[in-house]
């Protein structure tokens, strides 16, 4: 029962208000992509023990999609940010590096 801050409405939302949407920052592959690219986009998901970027929707709140950076083992939340981005913003990366020295975005 996580609590995540919705970056749109500012609410610290209980997990019951949220809908999980899996890994964030996937690059969509459409027609013209190779079988491997499409397979990777559609099915291959990271499932790390540690830092992970996830999609969440404030489903029973403002209805907006946002992203969360958190540690899947310690449940530490490094930050949440709007979904309209292709990668984690700098302040989020800085927050992760501060807490996990040596960590790099792959």
């Amino acid at each position, binding site marked *: 029962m996580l609590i995540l801050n919705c970056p749109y409405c500012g609410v610290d939302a209980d997990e019951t208000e949220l809908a999980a949407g899996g890994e964030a920052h996937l690059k*969509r592959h459409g027609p013209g992509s190779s079988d491997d690219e499409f397979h990777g986009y559609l099915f291959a998901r990271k499932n790390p023990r540690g830092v992970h970027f996830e*999609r969440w*929707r404030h489903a029973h709140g403002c209805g*907006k999609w946002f992203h969360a950076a958190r540690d899947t083992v310690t*449940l*530490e939340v490094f930050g949440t940010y709007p979904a309209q981005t292709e990668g984690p913003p700098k302040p989020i990366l800085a927050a992760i590096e501060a807490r996990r020295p040596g960590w790099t975005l792959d």
Partner: protein
Amino acid sequence: MSTRLANHGRLIDRSATLGFTFNGKAMIGHPGDTLASALLANDQLMIGRSFKYHRPRGLVASGAEEPNALVGLGSGARFEPNQRATTTELFDGLEAISQNHWPSLEFDIGAVNTYLSRFLPAGFYYKMFMYPRGFWKHVYEPFIRQSAGLGKVPTERDSDTYEHFYAFTDVLVIGGGVAGLQAAKSAAQSGARVLVLEQTAHWGGRAPVDGGSVGGAPVEEFVAALLDELGAMENVTLRSRTMAAGVYDHGYVLGYERLTDHAPTQPGPRHRLWRIRAAQVISATGAIERPLSFAGNDVPGVMLAGAMRDYAVNFGVAPGKRIIVATNNDDAYRTAITLRQAGLDVLRILDARDTGGGALMNEARALGIRIDCGRAIGKVSGGKRVHKVQICAQNGQGGALEAVECDAVAMSGGWSPVVHLWSHCGGKLLWDEAQAHFRPDPQRPPTGAGGKGFVTTAGSASGALSLAGVLRDANEAGKSAAQAAGFKPKRTRTPQAEDATEAPLEPVWLMPREAGVRLRAKTWLDYQNDVKVTDVQLAAREGYESVEHTKRYTTLGMATDQGKLSNINGLATLSQALGAAIPAVGTTTFRPPYTPISMGAIAGEARGAVFQPLRRTPMHGWHAEHGAEWEPVGQWRRPYAYPRTGESVHDAVNREVRNTRQAVGLLDASTLGKLIVKGPDAGRFLDMLYTNMMSTLKPGRCRYGLMCSENGFLIDDGVVARLDEDTFLCHTTTGGAERIHAHMEEWLQTEWWDWKVFVANVTEQYAQVAVVGPKARQLLEKLGGMDLGAEALPFMGWSEGRIGEFDARVFRISFSGELSFEIAVPASQGLAFWSALLAAGHALGVMPYGTEALHVMRAEKGFIMIGDETDGTVIPQDLGLDWAISKKKDDYLGKRAQARSHMTDPERWKLVGLETTDGSVLPDGAYAIGPGVNANGQSNTQGRVTSTYFSPTLNKGIAMGLVLHGPDRMGEVLEFPGTEGNTFHARIVDPVFFDKDGEKQNA
């Protein structure tokens, strides 16, 4: 015999009595008794039979850890199985029955299993029931089903009520023992809001039983003063009879309050589920005593030493009069002393340690109790109660030195902290060699959103086992939790406790150490699941190295008590068998709830009519008044049919179909999803969402569209109407409105966020009525208003205007193949519009029709239905809908997936019509069998039925199905086995059974 003592009993009121029954036998107890203590007072030592061997079992413990004394409580709508007698407070009129025996507790046929026990070892089920193969279904499974299960399932609907309660606090203290109370006080002194949960009805925990003093006064007085102080603090809330069931992510804790279990006539909810958010949690859950592993340690009358002390001090009862105490630590001496002072015969203390104990041993000796050091119990004899104990050397194989007749045995293998709540959310443990237990590792707590620990332990839950140590630890825990929650703790001194210094414990995992197999095979580790030392040793011999695997193979710790008594002893036994250190073997996972909680509490108020919201169309009340047979669709109720007096539902459906085909019918279509998609990029967006081209749709026109998921499967369909240049109205299926709305939002927000499009769900803003049939236009013209002629409003067009008194938007679309107008009016006018249509159409023979008539008519026309023809694995191409897939578009959701090799496989089953050769109706979901058999010896399949109905129009059964190479096999007859041993024969035909050229709908 077990009996009420003349003295002691701090929790009971001897001046009053309560009547109760056990297996129908009338018994008497006192207010303050638990069912367990009251049964002991009535000499009911044997309370149930064990799960596997049906051995007689009595009380082992006095609290939540009790494995044996599970009973059925209450009767009728208030019957509940598997309730622990030790945590059941006695009330007048309580009814209890014992479990797991036949025909009676005293005489049980299943007890023969105990003599078969050498043939029922660990893994017996896995080994035995493999062969011969055919035996499983007809011999083994029916036998196991009969003998499996503990307790009886209630047969009536639960008559009690339950509720959920939300709470927020800075510091949550779990456990109202002396540690919890002290921690609560030191946390609350910082100003933090503190909530304290105690699972029993009493505060102070074991301290008043164990004794000792604080600041020179008896600990009981210290507890009372502490309670007064906390009660006076405004920032402190104390809740007794409330157990913390589980600790979850980010400080979420479930509490389970039992409000009326002890007073069933009291009004209000029975249980309350507390959903708590705490910044910090203090787990002050105490410790649980470990049994000793000796032969016959399950005979009724063998009890944990601490429990025997509880029964004597708290309730003034004892399980026997001539008692032997066996121990490996000093604490059990307290029991011996207490029992001696209560006037009972303590025949012997068998201390497994060669050098015995400390100050408490001397105190016991001074009372005249005989103490034998280096001695052990070789075997306890007795059937339904303890009869005799054979005494042997601990360092030996069990050769009896002496046999002593007695009627109760108190045992203590040391104390283990209750680490469950610490562990639920990831707190780690360390092995404490000196005290031979796992305790929380303060360096590795469960962490919260900030990456810091949010659970602290206090008192014996930390592994502190002396009163002074408990208070010191608890005081610190309260301060550090307050600080972590953002408060400044006060500098306070820990209350100074005085208690006896104890000699070190000596781990004893088997008694005697070298016990032979005959003894070990009678030495129980897990009472509730009947797991013995030999079972765990067998598992180790058979290669089970992981404690998690051994647990599942032997069922150790898998019963309703989740191994509260057996875990440490079991894994110590495993580690010895493996020759590995205990910490290397590790523990199994601790999972919530701490003890079982009621299903009612989990459901709370969400039952019956309020289990789910019910959505009603504006005409819902009319349907109800006119005898609608309801069909649930999503959260809506739609009329399935409107049977008339004396008419069957099936006949009503046939009448509704015939009337609609021959005259005119009305359908309440308000539940269809209506999504407005608006903006300069709306056309482009819909081109991505639908398989066909929507951007080319002209205002005033409608187009049927298919929607697929990104992996190509058909997820929804419906008619799209273009309202103006940048506005579309998308109809979805009844159950699909919210899902498709969310689907649109997801893509707009997360992929195409720079596209200028808004989506609004206006489903409930409109009432929608389908006016269907050859006389539909005639009916509408009677109301007057807008021109609905074939030229003004052709098929697949829409227009806006007035019909009679109503503002209407009319779509000329048809899901039945008839001339059809779907008319949307503002929801507030829906009922009036419906009524006006019925009145105007009376002379034309108008009738409402339900969803089943709708289904029959769409099937007659070969129209697919999402959820019938689709099941999440079907693509539009399977359904012959290639015409609705744009070849011109570069991209749409699902396009790339539909090019994957499996999707273009010519072997995919395709949609066809099916017609039985004798006109009967095919069973829904039936499979067409093909030639040969598969690897499991089952017939190969080559198709299945997706929709099947009796068609009143054609007067025969019609169906649709997906069939291998179906469209190329017109006229072929397939075989569909039924469920009653019969077989249906059906011919592959065109799925459009009726008016293939669409003359009727185009009229």
